[in-house]
């Protein structure tokens, strides 16, 4: 399978006041299309930063970050935004649903931002919603949903536009064991049944075992695949 994510000698330095913080110190990692990869490491090891760089939310300080053949390092902010709209779906630890929209509204918003015409996203939405088991909850606002339901809505929002890559930042971090298992099984199903490429970061090795491959990180370095 072709490489969909290729990261080589990636460095990311943040300036905090007068201090430079080296979040990533020459990371090398790649993800094949259709893979489900977990990046595991303790808090502060740089895994979130790695995810955000790959997702185009921030620019690399140096190194190569290629996503579906496109070099993120050569892109300006507008181009990275475009790429994110076309090719990436995000799932966050805190769900990050818009509170003033219903579950359906949150999912439809992603389609709207991606420029998918009204109704065109419907078939994809229907199949994802069915698979995630949230058909009955679509007209509820996030405040009326449980944590597990909110995360499933967030996943639906992330995949409704059929992104090349799903980036999941500690997707079970705010969930109990039961809901965590539910969400992880759904991510696994998305990968197995729909061929969705998933890159997930987590500090919990028990979460990482749901993926095909585990990459360990520490102190801004990848330790092993």
């Amino acid at each position, binding site marked *: 399978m072709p490489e969909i994510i290729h990261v080589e000698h990636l460095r990311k330095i943040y300036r905090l006041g007068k201090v430079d913080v080296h979040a990533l110190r020459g990371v090398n990692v790649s993800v094949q299309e259709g893979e489900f990869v977990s990046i595991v490491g303790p808090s502060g090891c740089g895994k979130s930063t790695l995810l955000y760089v790959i997702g185009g*939310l921030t620019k690399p300080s140096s190194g190569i970050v290629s996503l579906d053949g496109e070099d993120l390092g050569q892109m300006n902010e507008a181009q990275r*935004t*475009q*790429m*994110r709209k076309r090719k990436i779906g*995000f799932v966050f630890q805190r769900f*990050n649903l*818009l509170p003033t929209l219903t579950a359906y509204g949150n999912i439809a918003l*992603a389609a709207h*931002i991606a420029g998918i015409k009204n109704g065109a996203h419907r078939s994809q939405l229907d199949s994802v919603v069915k698979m995630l088991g949230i058909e009955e909850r679509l007209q509820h606002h996030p405040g009326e949903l449980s944590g597990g339901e909110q995360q499933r809505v967030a996943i639906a929002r992330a995949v409704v536009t059929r992104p090349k890559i799903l980036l999941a930042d500690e997707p079970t971090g705010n969930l109990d064991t039961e809901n965590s298992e539910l969400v992880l099984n759904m991510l696994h199903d998305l990968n197995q049944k729909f061929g969705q490429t998933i890159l997930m970061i987590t500090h919990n090795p028990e979460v990482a075992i749901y993926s095909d491959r585990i990459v360990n990180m520490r102190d801004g370095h990848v330790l092993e695949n």
Partner: protein
Amino acid sequence: MRPVRTLVSITAVAVEVILIIMVVGLTHGILQETARRTQGVGADIMVQPQTTSMFMGFSGAPMPVQIGEKLAQVAQVRAVAPVMVQMSSTSGITLIYGIVPESFDAVSGGFRYLEGHGLESPDDVLVDDIFARSQKVHVGQTLTLLNHPFHLAGIVEHGKGARIFVRIDTLQDLMGALGKTSVFFVKLASPDDTRSAIAAFEQLLPHYQIRNMQDYLSLMTEANVPGLTDFIHVMIALAISIGLLVIFITMYSTIVERTREIGILKSMGASKAYIVNIVLRETAFLTSVGVGSGIGMSYLVRRIVMHSFPTINVLITGDWMLRAGLIALVASMAGASYPAFRATRQDAIEALAYE
């Protein structure tokens, strides 16, 4: 959801619109009312000194009354009425016409008396019904004007020049302008004779201002009132400032509160233009509601003003309602532009982490 903040924004825009509509309405209303009442005298031609202000009452009484006799001799003339115009600050700013009752009746067709009778004695005064209602006066009462007690002899229907009428000789005496007048109102045998009559008057009185009534009325615009246009512009600028600043503060605080939402939108691939569009659409919605409320409330304010001050006319036109709405919209967009710009500059990662 911030209902109070939303209400404040809408109210600010409404106040902005009300201010514009009322200031313009008041100035235009007063001008229109003045023009209408001057036209109501029924004259075809007005004769005034060359340097006189078109707003009678500002220029005193510099013309000898005898000029009227010369005017009356012109063939086309049916009647000439000398009128001395004096401004009074009693009960607001109002004009007093000093008239010769017989000649004024000949030009105007006479008063329609709602109460009482005409100017029979030197200290008699007539007021129109609007003045009487606003000042709550009745026939028989004493009215102090220009520090002189007058006897209210009659209440007449409004619309013939001023709201207060006294005998011209009494007014001349009070103002120390014996034998003088401010203006001659001339009634012609036929309105078709206007041009020829004016030509005759100009030959007779080459250094006087001679206008037909239509020309005079066409001058009743804000452009011909010194400083009025500037005043209107200043008030509009003030109104704009209110709307712009409140919208700025509202949208700025909205953007700050929704920092995380902006981060979420950015993570979904929302472009800067998309985010700006959201902010400006919300602003446009608030402004639209504010404009609608402002226009509606302008009518209410107008009603209150005209009920409380019957002598004041407020003219609300569709043209200025539209302008006020557009001004408010532009001001709101300007006020929201910096918050919208700031929203696009939010770092997505920091925004996502915002509590």
